[in-house]
C-alpha cells in the first residue's frame, strides 16, 4: 500500500454461491486510488466491476457473496475487518455511492429534500432545520433550478437527469473522501450524460475527493479519469493512466473497447469489435487490414428504387385531461407535422432527446398509436385509415425492435417458441417442423447457436437477447423494420456487434430501416439520412455524410458536442 493512496484494494476475490456452485466474480484484483484522483474502472456487464465497488461499500448481498481473500484499505483501515456499525459510520459519510438507475434509486414516497437531509442527519450532529438547509444548498450546487422549491418535490416530479443530480447531492452531502459512481450516466441521454459528467468532474475538483468511476464505455471517462483500470471476465487486464490507455493500449480487449464506439467522421463499413482483436480464449489476434479501413460515409446510391414509406404532415397528439370530469382541455402534440420519404433499402436515422417524439413517431408509422392527422403511405398505399384486419396483415411486412431486450421477451417461452410465434399468428411457414427449421436458420443468421433453441431468455446475456429480438422481428421476412433505441441498453462492445449485424441483415434481406436513437454517433454510423427531432418536429434533415460537418441548427450542434470524445484523440489506424 502506497502512502498516498486513499483506497487500496489488494488481491480481492469475491465469490457467489449460486445454484451451479461457486462462481468467482472478482479474481485477485488490486488497484489504488490516490487522494483527490479519479480512477475509471471499465469493463462489460458481468466483468466484476460493480461487484468490486459493492465490496468496497460493504453492500454485497450476504450470505450469497463471500470474500475468501483480499484486503481493502481505506485510510489505512481494512474495511473487510470492520463490523457492521463501523461500516455504517463510513457509508454515506466517508465513502458514498451513486447508482446507475436514477429512476428507481430514490424512494418514491419521500420528498427529495428529505432524502438528502436524511444522510446529513445520521452522520452529522445537526438539527433537522440545518440538515434541510444544507440539502437545499447542495441541490443548488448540483444545478437543480429553484432548489428551495424543488426540495419539496417527489422523485416522480423530476426528470432522469435531475434525479441523478439529487443522487449526487445525496452522495456528497457529508463531504465524502471517496465517491463511487457505478455507471451514473448510462441510463441518461447523451446530452444529459455530458452535463452530469461535467458536474461530477467539477464537484470532484472542488471538494478534492477521490472518485471511482465505473463504466462500460471508455469514451465516457476519457476526460475525467486520471487512471483507468480495465476489467475483463473478473480480472484486471490493464492498468494505466488515462492518456496512455487511449494512445498505447496493450491488451487486445482494451483495443477492442476503444475501437468499437462509432465515431463521427471516420466511418468503417463495419464497426470493429472486441472479437476482431482477441480470440474466444483471450489471446491477441491480428486485425485483418480490411476491417480497419476507414471510409468516407457513403451516400445512399439511388438506383431509382421505389419509395417504400412516405409520411406526410403526420400529427400524433395525446389529450390533456383537466377539470373535475376529466374533460379533454388541450392536446399535447407528441409528433407535430412530420414529413419524410424513405426509399427501399435506405435507412433513416431519427435522433433526439427523451420526449422529443421520436418513439411516438415510430409507433405512429406502424399505427401502434393512432395518428391524429396526416398520411402514412406504405408501398404506394395510404394506410392511415385502413381497417384493423388489413393493418394486421400488413404488419407482416412492418416490424419493430424495441429498446429493452430484458423485458420484451416473454420469460416463460423458449427461444424456439418466441421465434415461431409470429409465424403461428400469421399462419405462415407451413407445419411445425418447417417453422422450427426457419427459426433455427434465422437464429444462426443473428449469430446464435442452433443448440440454444430450447433455452429460455434469462439464460442469455443482454446482447444475445437483443439478437433474439432481431431474429423474431425478421421471422416474417419483413421489408421494413423500425429499430427503437435498439442498442441503447447494450454495452458499447455489444452495441458494435448488434449494429454490424443490423447492417449485414440489411444487405442480405434488402431491409429498409427507421433507426431511432438518442446517440447521434450511432445514428450517423448506421443511417443514410438523419433527421434531428425536437419538440415533435424534424428540425433538420440531411445526409449522414454531411450532417455532422454542416449542422445548421444549434440543437444539432448540441447533440454533436455531447458525444463522448475520449478516444477521438487518436486515430483508428494506430490501434493495430
Amino acid at each position, binding site marked *: 500500500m502506497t502512502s498516498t493512496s486513499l483506497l487500496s484494494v489488494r488481491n480481492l476475490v469475491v465469490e457467489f454461491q449460486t445454484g451451479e456452485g461457486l462462481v468467482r466474480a472478482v479474481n485477485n484484483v488490486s488497484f489504488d486510488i490516490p487522494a483527490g484522483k479519479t480512477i475509471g474502472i471499465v469493463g462489460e456487464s458481468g466483468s466484476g466491476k460493480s461487484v468490486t465497488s459493492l465490496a468496497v461499500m460493504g453492500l454485497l448481498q450476504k450470505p450469497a457473496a463471500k470474500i475468501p481473500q483480499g484486503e481493502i484499505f481505506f485510510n489505512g483501515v481494512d474495511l473487510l475487518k470492520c463490523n457492521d456499525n463501523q461500516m455504517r*459510520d463510513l457509508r454515506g*459519510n466517508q465513502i458514498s*455511492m451513486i*447508482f446507475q438507475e436514477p429512476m428507481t434509486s430514490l424512494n*418514491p414516497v*419521500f420528498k427529495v429534500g428529505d432524502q438528502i437531509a436524511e444522510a446529513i442527519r*445520521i452522520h452529522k450532529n445537526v438539527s433537522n432545520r440545518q440538515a434541510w438547509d444544507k440539502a437545499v444548498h447542495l441541490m443548488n450546487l448540483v444545478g437543480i433550478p429553484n432548489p428551495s422549491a424543488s426540495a419539496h418535490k417527489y422523485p416522480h416530479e423530476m426528470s432522469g437527469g435531475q434525479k441523478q443530480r439529487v*443522487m449526487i447531492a445525496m452522495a456528497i452531502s457529508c463531504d465524502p473522501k471517496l465517491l463511487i459512481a457505478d455507471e451514473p450516466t448510462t441510463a441518461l441521454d447523451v446530452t444529459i450524460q455530458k452535463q452530469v459528467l461535467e458536474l461530477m468532474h467539477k464537484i470532484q475538483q472542488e471538494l478534492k475527493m477521490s472518485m471511482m468511476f465505473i463504466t462500460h464505455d471508455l469514451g465516457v471517462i476519457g476526460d475525467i479519469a486520471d487512471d483507468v483500470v480495465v476489467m475483463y471476465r473478473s480480472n484486471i487486464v490493464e492498468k494505466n493512466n488515462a492518456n496512455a490507455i487511449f494512445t498505447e493500449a496493450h491488451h487486445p480487449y482494451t483495443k477492442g473497447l476503444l475501437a468499437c464506439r462509432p465515431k463521427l467522421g471516420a466511418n468503417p463499413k463495419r464497426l470493429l469489435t472486441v472479437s476482431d482483436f482477441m480470440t474466444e480464449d483471450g489471446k491477441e489476434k491480428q486485425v485483418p487490414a480490411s476491417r480497419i479501413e476507414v471510409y468516407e460515409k457513403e451516400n445512399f446510391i439511388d438506383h431509382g428504387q421505389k419509395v417504400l414509406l412516405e409520411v406526410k404532415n403526420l400529427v400524433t397528439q395525446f389529450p390533456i385531461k383537466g377539470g373535475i370530469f376529466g374533460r379533454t382541455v388541450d392536446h399535447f402534440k407528441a409528433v407535430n407535422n412530420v414529413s419524410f420519404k424513405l426509399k427501399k433499402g435506405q435507412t433513416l436515422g431519427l435522433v433526439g432527446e427523451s420526449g422529443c417524439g421520436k418513439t411516438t413517431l415510430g409507433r405512429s408509422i406502424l399505427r401502434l398509436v393512432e395518428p391524429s392527422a396526416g398520411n402514412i403511405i406504405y408501398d404506394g398505399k395510404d394506410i392511415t385509415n385502413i381497417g384493423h384486419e388489413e393493418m394486421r396483415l400488413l404488419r407482416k411486412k412492418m416490424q419493430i425492435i424495441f429498446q429493452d431486450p430484458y423485458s420484451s421477451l416473454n420469460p416463460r417461452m423458449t427461444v424456439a417458441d418466441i421465434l415461431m410465434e409470429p409465424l403461428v399468428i400469421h399462419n405462415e411457414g407451413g407445419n411445425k417442423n418447417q417453422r422450427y427449421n426457419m427459426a433455427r436458420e434465422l437464429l444462426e443468421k443473428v449469430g446464435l447457436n442452433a443448440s440454444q433453441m430450447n433455452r429460455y431468455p434469462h439464460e442469455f446475456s443482454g446482447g444475445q437477447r437483443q439478437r433474439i429480438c432481431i431474429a423474431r422481428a425478421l421471422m416474417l421476412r419483413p421489408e421494413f423494420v423500425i429499430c427503437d433505441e435498439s442498442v441503447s441498453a447494450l454495452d458499447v462492445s455489444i452495441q458494435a456487434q448488434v449494429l454490424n449485424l443490423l447492417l449485414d441483415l440489411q444487405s442480405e434481406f434488402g431491409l429498409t430501416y427507421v433507426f431511432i436513437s438518442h446517440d447521434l454517433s450511432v445514428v450517423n454510423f448506421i443511417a443514410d439520412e438523419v433527421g434531428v427531432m425536437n419538440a415533435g418536429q424534424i428540425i433538420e434533415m440531411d445526409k449522414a455524410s454531411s450532417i455532422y460537418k454542416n449542422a445548421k441548427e444549434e440543437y444539432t450542434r448540441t447533440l454533436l458536442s455531447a458525444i463522448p470524445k475520449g478516444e477521438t484523440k487518436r486515430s483508428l489506424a494506430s490501434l493495430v
Partner: protein
Amino acid sequence: MIPVLLGVSLIIFVLFNLVAGDPTAVLLGKNATARQMAELRETLGLNKSAFAQYLDVVKSAFTFDFGRSWATKQEITHMIRQGAYPSLCLSIPAFFLSTVFSLIISLFVAYYRGKGIDLFIRFLCIAGMSISALAYILFFQWFLAFKLGWFEISGFEFGFPDFVPYIALPAIIWILLSLGPDVRFFRTIILDEIYQDYVRTARAKGLSELTILMRHVLRNAMIPIITYVVIQLPFLILGALLLESFFSIPGLGGMTLNALNSSDFPVIKAMAILSSVMYIIFGLISDILYTVADPRVKLK
C-alpha cells in the same frame, strides 16, 4: 359512485326476481288460495310494473328503508341496527388487533428473513391456515370456555363492559385465523420492497437495517397493505357468519344466516344492498388513503 349504485341495484333486482320466483307461494305455503295470493301480491307491491319495482330497490339503496321482514315482520332497518351492535363489538377489536399483530410479526420476520425464526414463523402460518376454523372454534369452546371456564361459552350482553367476556374468545379465534394469511401476505409485500434499488441507496447512506425497514420500506409497503385492509372493512359490519352462530352472538351474520334458512328475501336483499353500499364507500376511502400514502397518485 351513483352509477355504480344504480347498476348494483339493477343486478340485485334481476337476480332476486329470477331466483325468488313467486314469493307469495313461499310465504303462504302449498295450501294458499288464489285470492290470498292475489291479496298478498297487492300488499307486497308485486302488481306494480317491473320498472316501478326496480325503482323501489333503488330507493331502498339510497334511503336504507328496506321494508319489513317476512319471517319476523319487524322493520328491517331496525333489525340491522340491532344486529350491527354485537357484530361490531366483535369485529372491530378483532380486526384491529389481528392487523396490528400481523404487521408487527411480518416486519419481524422480514428483518430476520432467511434465518431460522423466519422459517419457523412461516411454518406456523401454514400450519395455522391448514387447520379448519371449525376445529379452532370447537376446541377452544370446549377447552378454554367449558373445561377451564376462562370465558363465557356463548351468548351476548349489550353495553360495555358487559359484552367483553362474551366476545373475548371469538375475537381470539378470529385473530388466530387471520394471522396466517395476513403475515404471509404482508411479509411478501415487505420483501418485495426490500429488494428495490432505493433500499440499496438507503444502505449506501449508512442507515441501519432497522431504520431502513421502519422508515423506507414500511412506508412503501403500506400502499398495497392499505388496499388489502380497507377492502375487508365492509365484512366487519356484515358480521362473521360462523363465529356468530357458534357463539350465539345476535349479530348481522347470524341474522343473515337465519334469513337464508327461512328464504326471507327482503332481509337477504337488504344485506346484499348494504354490502354493495359498504363496498362502494370503502373503495372510495381506500382511493383517498392511497393519495395520502403514495404521492404519485392524484385524485382526478
